C-alpha cells in the first residue's frame, strides 16, 4: 500500500474461519544491549488497549475469535482467527492498535511483572531452563542474537520506562515496518480492498534500516561448562549458520532431519538405541534470519562420560563428511518435508502466518518452492557441505553437569 504496509492474501475455500496475521519487523535483535527483552515486553503491551478499545481481547472474543502473539529474534507476530463473517473486527482492531496504543504507568507495571513471571516460569523454574541463554551468550559475541527474546535478565524488564515504551512504538510499529496477511474463503480482491479500507489512511514514518552487527570470525572452539540441579548431564553442540535464505539453511535443515527426524533417524537409532549413550537426543536449526544456530543436543545416560558423549556426536557429524548419504535415506527426509508442508496447510492460521513470514524473507516464491529446494540437494552436495561446516574450531559446546 502507499503507506508501505505489505499485504498478502490467500483464498482458502476449505475453511469457514478467517485468519488475520500482522507481522512487525522488530524482534530482540533490534534491542539495545541495556534493554534486552524489550521487544517481547512490548508484544505484551500491545494487548493493553487503546483509547477506542480499552480491552483488546473483549471485542475479539465477542466475535468468537481467538488471538495471540509471539516474539522472535527477528520479528513480532500477532494473529487472530475468527469466523469469516467477522474478519472486519480483526482488521479494525489491528489497525486501531497500530496507531492508538495507550499505555498507562499502572498497565506497564503490571505487565512487567507478568513478563518477569514468564521469565521465571520458562527459564528459571525448569531444569535446563537457562540453557539457551548460556548457549547464545557463548555462540555469538557481537550479534544481538547473543541474547534470548526473553532478555538477559529480569532486571532489564523491570527497568523499562514509559518513555522508552513510547519511543519503541513510534519507531517500529509503523505500517511500513509491517506485513499484513489474510487467509479466508473471501475473493482476493475483496480482501485487498478490506486491507485498504482499514489500513490505507494510516500515515507512516519509515523505521530505520537494521544493519546486523557482524560476528567476528571464529578461530577456535568455544566451550562453557556449568553445574546445575538437573537430573542428567547434557551436552549441546552449536554451529553458526549463514543467512536464512542461503543454501546453508536448507542443507542444515536437511542434515538435522537425517540426524533426528523421527525414530528411524541416525541419532535415535545409533546414539540412543545401539550405543545407549543418550537417553534422548535431538538436532535442529533455530532459523534466525541473519544466521541462526545448528544444534545437536543430548541428555546422557547414567555412567556415560561427557567425553564419550561428545566424541559420539562428532563421529556422527563427521560421518556426513566422509560417507555419502544413501538415496533412500535422502528420499525419506524429502517425503517428510512434503508431508509436513501438506499437513501444515490444513490449518488456516498456519497459512496466514506463512504468508507473512515468507514476505518478510523477501521471497514469496519460497512459500511453494521449498520442496523443490530440498529435492535438489544431492548426496554429493551434503558431503561437500559437511566437510566445510562441521569444524570443531567453528563450534560452541555447552555442558550442563548434574549437581547431585
Amino acid at each position, binding site marked *: 500500500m502507499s503507506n508501505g504496509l505489505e499485504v498478502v492474501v490467500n483464498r482458502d475455500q476449505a475453511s469457514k474461519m478467517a485468519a488475520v496475521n500482522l507481522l512487525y519487523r522488530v524482534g530482540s535483535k533490534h534491542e539495545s544491549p541495556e534493554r534486552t527483552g524489550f521487544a517481547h515486553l512490548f508484544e505484551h503491551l500491545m494487548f493493553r488497549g487503546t483509547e477506542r478499545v480499552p*480491552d483488546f481481547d473483549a471485542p475479539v*472474543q465477542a*466475535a468468537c475469535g481467538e488471538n495471540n502473539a509471539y516474539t522472535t529474534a527477528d520479528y513480532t507476530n500477532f494473529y487472530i482467527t475468527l469466523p469469516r463473517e467477522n474478519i472486519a473486527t480483526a482488521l479494525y482492531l489491528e489497525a486501531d492498535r497500530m496507531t492508538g496504543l495507550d499505555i498507562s504507568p499502572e498497565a506497564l507495571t503490571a505487565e512487567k511483572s507478568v513478563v518477569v513471571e514468564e521469565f521465571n516460569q520458562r527459564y528459571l523454574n525448569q531444569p535446563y531452563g537457562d540453557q539457551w541463554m548460556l548457549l547464545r551468550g557463548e555462540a555469538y559475541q557481537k550479534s544481538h542474537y547473543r541474547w534470548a527474546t526473553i532478555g538477559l535478565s529480569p532486571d532489564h524488564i523491570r527497568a523499562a520506562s514509559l518513555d522508552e515504551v513510547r519511543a519503541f512504538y513510534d519507531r517500529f510499529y509503523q505500517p511500513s515496518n509491517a506485513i499484513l496477511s489474510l487467509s479466508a474463503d473471501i475473493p482476493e480482491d475483496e480482501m485487498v480492498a478490506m486491507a485498504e479500507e482499514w489500513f490505507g489512511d494510516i500515515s507512516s514514518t519509515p523505521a530505520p534500516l537494521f544493519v546486523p552487527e557482524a560476528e567476528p570470525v571464529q578461530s577456535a572452539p568455544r566451550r562453557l561448562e556449568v553445574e546445575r540441579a538437573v537430573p*542428567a548431564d547434557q551436552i549441546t553442540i552449536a554451529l553458526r549458520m549463514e543467512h536464512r535464505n542461503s543454501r546453508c539453511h536448507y542443507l542444515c535443515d536437511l542434515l538435522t532431519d537425517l540426524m533426528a527426524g*523421527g525414530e528411524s*533417524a541416525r541419532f535415535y537409532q545409533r546414539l540412543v538405541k545401539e550405543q545407549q549413550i543418550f537417553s*534422548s537426543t535431538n538436532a535442529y536449526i533455530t532459523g534466525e534470519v541473519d544466521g541462526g544456530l545448528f544444534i545437536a543436543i543430548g541428555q546422557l545416560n547414567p555412567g556415560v562420560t561427557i567425553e564419550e558423549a561428545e566424541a559420539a556426536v562428532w563421529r556422527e557429524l563427521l560421518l556426513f563428511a566422509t560417507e555419502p548419504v544413501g538415496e533412500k535415506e535422502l528420499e525419506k527426509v524429502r517425503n517428510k518435508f512434503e508431508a509436513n508442508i501438506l499437513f501444515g496447510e490444513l490449518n488456516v492460521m498456519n497459512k496466514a502466518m506463512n504468508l507473512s513470514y515468507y514476505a518478510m524473507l523477501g521471497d514469496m516464491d519460497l512459500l511453494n518452492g521449498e520442496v523443490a529446494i530440498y529435492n535438489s540437494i544431492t548426496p554429493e552436495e551434503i558431503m561437500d557441505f559437511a566437510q566445510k561446516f562441521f569444524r570443531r574450531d567453528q563450534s560452541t559446546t555447552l555442558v550442563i553437569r548434574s549437581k547431585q
Partner: protein
Amino acid sequence: MRKEDIKELPKVVLPDTIDITLAERHTAGNGVPVYALDCSKQEVLRFSFVFHAGTSWQKHPFCAAATANLLSAGSPSHSAHELAEALDFYGSWYDVSVDRDAAVISFCTLLKFLPQTLALAEEILLTPTFPEEEVEIYRTKRRQRLIVERSKPDFCVRELFARRLFGSEHPYGRGYAAEVYDGLTREQIVEFYQSNYTSEGTFVVASGNVGSEALSALLRIADGLPAPSVKPTRTIPSPQSEGSMHKHFEGTVQTSVRIGRLLFPRGHEDFIGMQVVATLLGGYFGSRLIQNLREEHGYTYGAYCGVVNFDEAGYLAISTEVGGEVAEDAVRQIMWEVERLRTEPVSDEELAIVKKIIFGEMMRILDGPFGIADVTIENIQNGVTNEYTARMVQEVKAITPERVLALAQRYLAPEDLITVTLGE
C-alpha cells in the same frame, strides 16, 4: 492518522449453528465399528484405532503405555528399525497416546502413500512381537525419562494433584517410582496386548479424504482383531481424596498451585454447564482468574480452569504458577473468585462472552479433518454421535446466570476443594 468517521467496531455476526460432519458408521465382521468422516478434499487421511487399553486397565505398573509404545517395536517380518524406517519413509505421522481410559493409535498419511501406510498399520496393530531387547531398551529409556520429568515442578504437581484427588491407590491417581520399571516384563506386555487389543470395546475413526479403498482396508484390519479369550476387566473403586497439602520442592522460584475437586464421569447432565462455569473462571484469556492474577496483580504468566472427564470419574482443576512470595495471596484470590461465582450471578454480558468463547473454540477445533477426528473420538467415548456437538450449541446458548450460580453453589463449595501447592 485514522479516518475520523471510522469509530465504531464493525458489527459482529454470530454463528447460529455449528456444522460438523456426521460420521458414517460401518461395521467389521467381528463387530468393530469403523467411523468414516469424509471431510476434506486435500490429499490426506488420518485414521485412529481406539482401544480399551489406558492406564486404568493395566494389571502391572507402566504396562499400558509400554504396550502401546512397543506396538511398532517389531513384527514377524520387520524389526523396530525397519518399521520406523518405513513409517518415516512414507512421511506418515504415527502417534501413540495413552490416557487413563484409552490407547489411541493414529496414522496420518498422504494419499499417495495410503496403501503402504495401511500395510504398516496392519502389521503394527495385528502382529506386534514385542522383542525382549526392545522391551529392555524401552525400560531403560523410560526410567531415565521419568527421573528427568520428576525433576520438573509442573510434572510433579500434576502427579501430586491426581494422587490427592483420587487417592494414592486409585487407578486414576496412582503413580509409581521410576525403579518400578525394573519389574516391567515382556510377558506382562504380551498378556496386556492379548486381553486389551481385541475386538472388545475397540473402534476406528477415519477422517480426511476417505475413499472406498481406505474404508475397506480399515474394515479388513479391524476385522483382524480377535475376540478376547477372557473379557478384560478393571475395577475402579470410589476415589478416596487425601486432602490439601504443600510439598517442598528445592530450587524453585515459583510455586505451582492446583485447586480442584472430583466431579462426574463422561456423559453427565451437568457437563456442559460446568464447562461454562470453568470457562468463566479460567478457560480463556480474559477469564476471571486471568483478570485477577495476571492483569491486576501480575502474579503469574497464566492461570487456567478446566473440567476433565474419564469413563468412571472426572474432576475440575484450577492451575497456575506464581512467584513464591505471593503464593499464599494467589490462593486467597482464587478462593475469592470461586466465592464470587457462588454468591453473585454473572452479568449477561460476561456470560455472553463466555458462550462465544466456547463456540469460537469449537469452530476452530472443527476447522480441519484432524480436529473433527478428535471431537468424533470423544463423542463416541461419551456414547453420543456428532449430532451432540451440534446440539451442544443450543444447550450452551440456553444457559442462564441463575444456572451458573446454582452450579457453582452445588459444585464449588470451599470445603470440597483440594489445594495442592509445590515450591520452596
